[in-house]
């Protein structure tokens, strides 16, 4: 299995960080992948331009859920400006599985990032080219 999904991805899937919802989020957004039914919702609490807290919920494959867990770990505590700079390359590096050659799985991995971008920029119709 290790050569299938590396161990830390499986760990994030089985024991996700920041799973759940915030009672009073500053901003929330839910993204869907219609191809496979994956769903990721992000709740962000922003105070003084800092992402004080972040939670995710949803359902889907290992990649989509582990990616959301990894993303929330990375974003928590960052300034909004720093969070905006966190992009595809940074997330994929943290996931650590070569997904570039698998466009279908890439969408799974980037679902949480898309939700984050919508939260931070407040635009629900970000074009795919802009975030992927």
């Amino acid at each position, binding site marked *: 299995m290790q050569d299938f999904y590396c161990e830390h991805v499986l760990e994030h899937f089985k024991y996700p960080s920041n799973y759940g919802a915030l009672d009073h989020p500053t901003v929330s957004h839910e993204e869907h992948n219609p191809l*496979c*039914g994956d769903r990721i919702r992000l709740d962000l609490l922003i105070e003084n331009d800092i992402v004080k807290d972040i939670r995710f919920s949803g*359902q889907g494959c290992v990649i989509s859920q582990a990616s959301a867990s990894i993303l929330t770990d990375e974003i928590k505590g960052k300034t909004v400006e720093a969070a905006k700079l966190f992009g595809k390359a940074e997330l994929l590096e943290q996931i650590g599985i070569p997904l570039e050659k698998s466009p279908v799985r890439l969408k799974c991995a980037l679902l949480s990032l898309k939700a984050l971008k919508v939260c931070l920029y407040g635009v629900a119709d970000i074009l795919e080219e802009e975030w992927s």
Partner: protein
Amino acid sequence: MVATETFPIFDVLAIRRDFPILHQEVNQFLVAFLDSGASSQRPRQVIECLEDYYRRYHANVHRGVYKFSEEATFAYERARGKVARFVGATSPREIVFTRNATEAINLVAYAWGRANVKAGDRILLTIMEHHSNLVPWQMLAQQTGAHLDYLTIDGQGRLVLDDLDRLLTEQTRLVALTHQSNVLGTINPVSEIAQRAHAVGALMLVDGAQSVPHMPTQVRDLGIDFLAFSGHKMCGPTGIGALWARRDLLEAMPPFLGGGSMIKVVELEQSTYADIPARFEAGTPAIAEAIALGEAIDYLSNIGLDTIHHHEHMLLQYALEQLSQVPGLRIHGPTSAEERGAAISFSLEKVHPHDIAAFLDSQGVAVRAGHHCTQPLHRVLQVPATTRASFYLYNIPEEIDRLVAGLVKVKQLLG
């Protein structure tokens, strides 16, 4: 475990030797290709046929008076004849080459639909339709003000035919349904529904994308009016499919796409259109692909569709038996092999279809994961996505053993 030798119907290992792609390794395993429902593989005969055309006699059809063009035209029209015989058409003129089943259905929706369907009319579909036999009718309904009705399914994935009395009305112009569900595997009682449709004056279109490759299909016996199917699911190339339509219907239909080849006389303000089937084949067609589809039909016919169906049926029985022993696995669609074809979709408790498919890929087993272009059906099944294994003439029981072993393993790891 059942060995291939106990499948004495035909020499499947000899068949496999015809398919170069099946002898490749994927992730250090010999590939087990269980996704023919999405697109089948091609035997060397079909691949060589394509190459032979391009190397030896490529030219545009129905135009030149030189040797290449005449030979290409002859081969293209001979392929039309093969398709016609394959589905039991009365004449090759009843066969229109299209890109695929989707385009064939769109052709009927545009050409026949816009001339015959008006506000208040009804079109009867089923909840198990592939998007290709659903969206074109939605578009037609939106443009004309017609209504769509849907037959639903029971817990075993069979159409609820009791609803036919209620849903087939004097306003119903067309019943459009799949012969075999690409997800549930259910084989629908096409003849019976066609009779019921005709009794209220409706026409009957059958999406044969999942049935024509796998079982003998004779349009006269089925008593239908339109049949759409794709070449790439029956050992032919991509980019070629066909529409069969009853000749009188085709004769009465206005054109679909406008352009070269589909006209008789073109003036500045108007044109007269070619006879069938050319009226529906505007522009340079997929010549090589049509000829190679004819070759694929020869290949399948030499083995025999009955034989192929029987082989698949044995694989299906074995797969149903083995899959039912996987803990937490739920098969969608009929559990009896008698009511279904060799495409099996399933859910594995707590394991997402993408993870199943990705894990099986790591073991060299190719299956499909997703909604299989049937979102309304998946809503009825109450699952966002499923995993599907589908079989064809070249599959062997050992591949099913590998599928099952992979499922047991991925369940242990992720479930």
